[in-house]
């Protein structure tokens, strides 16, 4: 492996890990199920595609890199589909979206938290 190859692969893997980290932080920090699904569905897919692309450049042109390309195609198809199915299930279930209260205040408003909690108790489900 040439050093240039290694540097390029390292750079792409680093960008991918950054996107994975952003998706994880968004899953914790965002106030609502729908916004969390937004964070996970997009940035995680992009992060995984970038990391596996960097690993393909590490590997070179072999059968294994072709299989890694298959993984990229599969993740690009299935990860947004799974997130969409879950979000549609939540919408049909009647989960209310988070709304910002008028007049500011903190982001996690009482109305949104109460609405989400009364809609999605595990006991009812």
């Amino acid at each position, binding site marked *: 492996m040439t050093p240039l190859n290694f540097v390029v692969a390292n750079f792409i893997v680093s960008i991918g890990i950054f996107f994975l980290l952003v998706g994880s932080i968004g899953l914790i920090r965002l106030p609502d199920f729908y916004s969390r699904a937004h964070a996970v569905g997009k940035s995680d897919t992009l992060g995984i595609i970038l990391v596996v692309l960097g690993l393909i450049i590490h*590997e070179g042109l072999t059968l294994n890199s072709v299989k890694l390309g298959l*993984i990229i195609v599969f*993740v690009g198809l299935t990860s947004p589909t799974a997130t969409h*199915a*879950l979000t549609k299930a939540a919408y049909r279930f009647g989960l209310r979206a988070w709304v910002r209260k008028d007049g500011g205040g903190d982001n996690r408003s009482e109305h949104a938290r109460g609405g989400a909690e009364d809609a999605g108790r595990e006991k009812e*489900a």
Partner: protein
Amino acid sequence: MDKYYIYLGVILTVVILIPLYRVLRGPTLFDRMLGAAAIGTKTMVLIVVIGFIFNRLDMFIDITLAYAVLNFIGTIAVARYLGAIRKRGK
């Protein structure tokens, strides 16, 4: 060079541990399922990196493909199951 993949695996493990918070104390059931799906999707990359560490990439890639299919089917099954349930009193 060998150390590189080990460091990559450690960083990925830390990134995977973050959504566990949402799985453990998400307010709704959908949050927990979303966190579980996110963990499964990131674990695929970790399995590929483990294949690089052990120099058995051919075997671990097949494991990764099977894991991806299982994760997708599981998430779709839970989504279908929860989509059939309506909110009470509606």
